[in-house]
């Protein structure tokens, strides 16, 4: 026979277990949707990481400038998960400069630009001051950068992998589009997304 006290305790433990189980299920469900929505949502802030400079300093010695030593067909066969793992490991080991999650995402995007044969572009800084908007970032060298704002186009200055421009400030800088051309290839970046070639 189980005493009443003991039975109450068992009941309490059982209830706790049910709550805990429900919480666990809910967390898994939330995490699942988090992953789905997170993956679908593109970044919405300037990228405070010079992905091209990082690549030049830590990767280009072996992989060549702009990934010229990669076998792009081989690279394209890698799943996003595998690419992300390899970039993380290579950055930490061979690159000797570990990367954080958003920086890895930016490197993945830069690598997608190699596979797509398109110029890569980053918006690193957006600042409104005295009615003017200052934008700057990185771009695949030897590209032309134009800023599209209210049906007007403004050519940006490009030096090596850096671009910059000062414009009359719009009401919302996130409405600006950055258009990059290199030869007959083109990339468009909505300023609010931070960097191109995100999935």
């Amino acid at each position, binding site marked *: 026979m189980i005493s009443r006290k003991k039975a109450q305790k068992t009941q309490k433990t059982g209830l706790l277990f049910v709550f805990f189980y429900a919480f666990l299920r809910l967390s898994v469900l939330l995490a699942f949707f988090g992953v789905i929505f997170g993956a679908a949502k593109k970044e919405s802030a300037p990228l405070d990481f010079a992905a091209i400079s990082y690549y030049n300093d830590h990767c280009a010695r072996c992989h060549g400038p702009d990934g*010229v*030593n*990669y076998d792009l067909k081989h690279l394209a066969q890698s799943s996003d998960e595998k690419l992300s793992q390899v970039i993380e*490991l290579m950055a930490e080991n061979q690159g000797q400069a570990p990367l954080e999650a958003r920086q890895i995402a930016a490197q993945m995007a830069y690598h997608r630009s190699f596979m797509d044969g398109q110029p890569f572009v980053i918006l690193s800084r957006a600042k409104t001051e005295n009615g003017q908007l200052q934008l700057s970032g990185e771009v695949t060298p030897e590209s032309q950068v134009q800023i599209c704002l209210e049906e007007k186009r403004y050519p940006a200055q490009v030096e090596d992998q850096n671009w910059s421009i000062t414009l009359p400030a719009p009401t919302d800088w996130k409405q600006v589009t950055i258009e990059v051309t290199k030869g007959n290839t083109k990339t468009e970046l909505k300023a609010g997304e931070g960097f191109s070639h995100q999935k």
Partner: protein
Amino acid sequence: MKSLYFLPTLLLGASFCAADETPPVTLDAIPKVFSQALPPLEKFNGKTGDKVPAFAVRPGYQVTLAADGLTEARFMVFDDKGTLYLSQPDKKKGISALMDKDGDGVYETKTQFVSNMQAAHGVDFYDGWLWFATATGAHKARDTNGDGVADETIGLIAEGTLPRSGHWWKGLCVTPDGFYLSIGDSGDHDDNFATEREKIWLYSLDGKTRKLWASGIRNTEKMRLRPGTKELWGSDHGTDNIGKDWGESKEKGQPFTDAGPPEEFNHYVEGAFYGHPFVEGNRVPRPDYLNRPDIIDLAARTTPPAWSFGAHWAGNGWTFLTKDYFPNASGDVFVAFHGSANSSAKAGYRIERLMFDALTGRPYGSQLIVSTLGANGQQLDRPVDCVEAPDGTILFSCDSGRIFRISKAN
């Protein structure tokens, strides 16, 4: 009085009792061992010349600066006139020709021997030509008017033919029987068994035909024949992160990866298999392939290394010594170790002498000659290749774009 006879017995018994009471050894009582720690270098007081970082140099040797300002300095070879060729796998570069006209050990003149050749790498000199491999092809070039710039270049393997990506650094060794060319792994330990990768090929001297020489290699960046023989030798890099599957992490540390697998120095025999990516070092299966049904068969067919160096040391270039300049060193090898990227503490970063037994022609020991790590373990430079100069001194190239010269201490 009689009881005194029992005293030793009692004491002995007491000591046994004390032993019984000693607690068993616990894991916490055993200190963690850093397998990659440098040996004590206090006695490494060999001289370093002007503009040479504070390398630790074995007594009896000295290190001086031979050349500077050579970005992307990689592999080196001398021709029969004493010109030193250096590959620089940068798009705008190619291969430089350097000369030490006054014989003072400083290479004061430089010409651009081959230009606009992306990813020039393995070099060798044979029959009046500078032979070189790029990431995806192979060529030979020569200078017929003596201006230090190649005016004749012949393609042997067309650019774009060989697989790039991953370990694209093609090693090259030219012999009267043809040229050997190594093609490395597409990744760290990819299964490339059924492809042309992870193999050494023997090409006809015109580059038109090839046959498989050896397989199961990972990344052999330089091959040479042992002087006076047809034996092909090379240094092969081991894999990274072997302990990942066993649960290694940043928090737990990486004791498996820090100590293994070894870097291999191999004698590449025709038809032989060197185990990669399935079996490493002295026939130890890589964990990723442990469950292959043919793992024992693969091990049985694996030729173990002729010599093993420390894990992740990254032996890139090396040279046999053929002259009598350094005492009792003819027939030995000097290896340039680029240094680790995958161990907790920096390992490698050195020039190591591998001693060969004159009777058996096999390695029997190795010793540190120059460490390019500083007193606090910081990286002073990363050696890439070693070459024997016509005067018997040894040159080694480094990532910093410098070439250093090892000579006997005065």
